[in-house]
């Protein structure tokens, strides 16, 4: 291989100020070569983003950097500010996480794309517009001549991130650092952005550092992988090695705790405990308190293992790296059961929840008198049922109306039309007081555990609150009931008097679950309950939910955007697009034989944590963005982005009806399995 573009040795970053120093990065070595994508994977607090900011010299003043960062011939840690500035934009380009905030809202996109090049004197200010148009065209922005003069708020999320890619690549830098570039995006948009990134990387031959928490994205895009934990790289090697023959127990833990879209596990194997707080790192190996193979051996507690070779180009920082092979071999194959084998018996009897033709329309007001000029059809005719003890997954991208559906069922948002029957009782026409009583047995779990708990109440009081509201505190056992609820969700009774801020995200979500269980509900509506959590914690919560379901016979309506999580937990799955359910089926059928083109595109866009799949999978990259629900397209809402669309789809709305031969209902004029129809038209691979 040629000379590395970037060479990092012994990098240490410590934050000072506000108490004692916090080591965020503690000795990191790696190289990146031209034409290579290095994936850096880790959970929050692992030091991965700090590493990337250190490379570009963009750390805040409270950071102290030690070690060596060589970019080409320049030692970045010793270079003065002016040289560092010169290198940014010209030698290093950066792509950040949230495209909503990375662009300056008051300047046009075009100006921002070439601003760096103008500042570096690479192009003249007069030629900047022309160059911006060219760059926007290269990242597939439609109508670049018009778009170049628009402001960021006029771009959709996916277009903004593509503009950021154009901006980062404008000066043809040798190194691109992409920090969680698709985390804030929907899965079909993520697929677009990743393919643009890959295309531009191939065109320019730049080296790319891709920082992410998503193993699927790494498997899809990276050539080499570095896994970070507690401020260090704990394992590094080629992507196939890392996924097939991991040699660090943490990597194994990550892979096992991840729900997969390509197979079904009975049960996830979470990593116990919490990721370490950089200010309070464990002694010795930072992973030892959570490690399944350390077995409390003395050396793990006293000595930090060095990163050592365990293969030709494979390194691991584990004292017992050789034993990891066995751990992985033991765990993986037997637990992975092909998806079609696992299917639970469908629930018999009348459904617990029956939603029929649910509509939630919000008025759009405009004009001088703020008169209603139209409706946002957030939910536009959703029908679904949930049986006792059953889990129904409701998936869709942001803005599809899945959360509004959940909240309307709960009565938190008023339904515009349709019926909601819970336990045989119609709840849409109840008065507020009757509704409060009726939905005692239906409870809601929120996405963000940080904002769903009242910060000024103790967690004991928070869990007791529903009992007090309904005047059932004494009747249901008082303090003993609260203790029982905490034990049910795996929290010790000693924490009752503490405040929410003293808990981690996963623990807060457990408290939220305990609160929802207080009134002995029969149905839980879970709105993205694990989306805000790290992978290892996510697995703990998913397992808890499954255990509770078995123990208490709960029914779940599981609302999520993550198709892998939904596949793992659900019995049946419904897919939403623009306020409507487009396909609904038994889990196995929906994932193995989807018949709606949207479901097919969605499934093909999900990155799979298996590098081999890169070659074999066919990907359908959807064009364009999700339309505005205030102005939905005519006919079938999906037709402008659909690869099977015909004239009929433009004019005629498809009915939601059973698909012959499968336990599926779908709303498509041209429904059918992908093999049969998909190849006919332009499904790009």
């Amino acid at each position, binding site marked *: 291989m040629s000379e590395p573009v970037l060479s990092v040795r012994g990098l240490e970053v410590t934050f000072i100020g506000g108490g004692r120093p916090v080591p965020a990065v503690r000795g990191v070595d790696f190289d990146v070569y031209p034409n290579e994508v290095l994936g850096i994977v880790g959970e929050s607090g692992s030091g991965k983003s700090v590493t990337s900011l250190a490379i*570009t010299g*963009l750390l805040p003043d409270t950071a102290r950097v030690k070690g060596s960062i060589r970019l080409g011939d320049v030692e970045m840690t010793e270079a003065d500010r002016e040289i560092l*500035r*010169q*290198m*940014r*934009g*010209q030698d*290093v*380009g*950066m792509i*950040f996480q*949230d495209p909503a*905030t*990375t*662009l*300056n*809202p*008051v*300047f046009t996109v075009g100006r*921002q794309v070439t*601003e*760096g090049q103008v*500042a*570096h004197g690479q192009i003249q200010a007069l030629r900047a517009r022309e160059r911006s148009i060219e760059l926007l065209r290269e990242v597939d922005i439609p109508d670049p001549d018009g778009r170049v003069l628009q*402001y960021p*708020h006029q771009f959709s999320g996916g277009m903004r991130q593509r503009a*950021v890619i154009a*901006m*980062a690549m404008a*000066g043809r830098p040798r190194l691109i650092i992409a920090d969680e570039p698709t985390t804030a995006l929907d899965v079909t948009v993520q697929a677009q952005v990743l393919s643009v990134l890959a295309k531009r990387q191939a065109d320019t031959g730049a080296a790319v550092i891709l920082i992410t928490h998503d193993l699927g994205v790494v498997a899809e895009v990276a050539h080499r992988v570095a896994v970070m934990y507690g401020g260090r790289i704990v394992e590094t090697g080629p992507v196939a090695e890392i996924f097939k023959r991991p040699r660090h127990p943490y990597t194994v833990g990550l892979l096992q705790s991840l729900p997969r879209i390509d197979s079904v596990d009975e049960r996830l194997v979470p990593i116990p405990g919490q990721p370490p707080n950089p200010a309070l790192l464990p002694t010795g190996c930072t992973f030892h308190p959570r490690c399944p193979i350390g077995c409390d051996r003395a050396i793990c507690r006293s000595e930090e293992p060095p990163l050592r070779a365990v293969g030709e180009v494979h390194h691991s920082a584990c004292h017992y790296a050789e034993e990891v092979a066995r751990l992985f071999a033991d765990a993986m194959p037997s637990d992975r059961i092909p998806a079609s084998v696992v299917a639970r018996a469908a629930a018999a009897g009348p459904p617990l929840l029956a939603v029929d033709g649910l509509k939630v329309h919000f008025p759009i007001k*405009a*004009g*001088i*008198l*703020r008169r209603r000029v139209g409706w946002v059809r957030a939910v536009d005719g959703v029908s679904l049922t949930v049986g006792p003890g059953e889990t129904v997954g409701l998936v869709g991208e942001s803005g599809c109306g899945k959360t509004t559906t959940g909240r309307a069922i709960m009565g938190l948002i008023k339904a515009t039309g349709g019926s909601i029957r819970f336990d045989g009782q119609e709840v849409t026409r109840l008065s507020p007081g009757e509704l409060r009583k009726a939905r005692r047995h239906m409870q809601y779990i929120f996405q963000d555990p940080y904002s769903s708990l009242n910060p000024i109440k103790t967690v004991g009081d928070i869990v007791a609150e529903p009992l007090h509201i309904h005047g059932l505190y004494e009747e249901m056992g008082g303090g003993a009931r609260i203790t029982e609820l905490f034990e049910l969700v795996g929290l010790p009774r000693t924490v009752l008097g503490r405040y929410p801020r003293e808990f981690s995200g996963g623990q807060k979500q457990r408290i939220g679950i305990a609160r929802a269980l207080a009134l002995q509900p029969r149905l839980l509506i879970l709105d993205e309950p694990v989306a805000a959590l790290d992978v290892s914690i996510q697995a703990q919560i998913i397992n808890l939910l499954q255990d509770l379901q078995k123990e208490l016979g709960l029914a779940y309506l599981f609302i999520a955007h993550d198709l892998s999580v939904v596949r793992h937990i659900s019995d049946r799955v419904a897919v939403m697009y623009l306020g409507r359910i487009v396909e609904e089926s038994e889990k196995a059928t929906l994932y193995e034989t989807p018949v709606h083109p949207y479901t097919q595109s969605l499934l093909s866009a999900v990155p799979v944590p298996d590098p081999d799949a890169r070659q074999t999978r066919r990907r359908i990259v959807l064009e364009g963005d999700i339309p505005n629900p205030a102005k939905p397209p005519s006919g079938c809402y999906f037709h402008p982005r659909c690869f099977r669309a015909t004239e009929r789809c433009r004019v005629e709305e498809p009915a939601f009806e059973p698909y012959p031969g499968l336990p599926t209902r779908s709303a498509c004029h041209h429904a059918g399995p992908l093999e049969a129809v998909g190849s006919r038209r332009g499904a790009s691979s």
Partner: protein
Amino acid sequence: MTGYIIRRILQLLPVLLIASAGIWAMIYAVPGTPIGAIVGENATPEQIQAAIQRVGLDQPVLVQFWAWLKSAVLGDLGRSIHSRDPVLDLIMLRVPATLQLGLSATLVGLILGIPVAVISALYPGSWIDRSLSGWSALALGVPTFWLGILLILLFAVQLRWLPSASTYVSVFDSPLGALRNTFLPALTLGVYVSGIFARFLRASLLSELKADYVRTARSKGLKERDVVGRHVLRNALLPFVTVVGLMMAAFIGGTVVTEAVFTYPGIGRLLIQAINQRDYPLIQGVILFVLVAHVLINLMVDVLYAYIDPRIDYS
């Protein structure tokens, strides 16, 4: 845009209507008869009779209010009890003085406030930030009437450079005379608003400096001067323009205390005179005038903000 402006005006109408009804009702709430409040205690029977005719005291209340409002809209605010001059004329005589004071005070406030804010925001938490923040607190904490007294003591009593009582000299007639007479009041008021400006702009700059787009701008290799001078300042100035505008709106009539300190002949002093003389038509007229001017400038500030911020879709 036009639609947006019309909608804002329509929103303001009820506010203006309620407020002017309140102003109109003043004379009914004061001790004594309303007619005494309109024509004064020493009026002749003919004057009383004329006023009863004009105001229509024998008419139903709503009709009276309507008549009053109609003539007010047409510019007839009645006559002063004290001088018998039309109220509107008396007000218009004072408007240039108040405008000159308000604008020069804003200028002083900007000259003192903006550098303080920018330097503070560039080195947050440093000794210089702490001392400048202390200065802002002092500027806001010292009452204008006391600061005015101190300035008179220094410049008029001790140094004898400037007069202790100011009159209005238009800057267009005699720039030097205007400076002599307007400098102290403008400085007094300007120091106070510089505290508001500095605090607001500093906070605004600091929150913008934390925004993600600043990191993006740095990652492009822009000079720090351009990152702050173009990206950050542009964003921070948007809300700042609003505050400057609101301040200027408040100066219509709101300069009353400073005018009193320096016996400066602005609208505020006219109001105090009117209150002291129980000249109710004049009190009503001044307050109604300030109300309308204040509300209209606020509206203009809103419209300006919608115009300069590309994110606001004013349809």
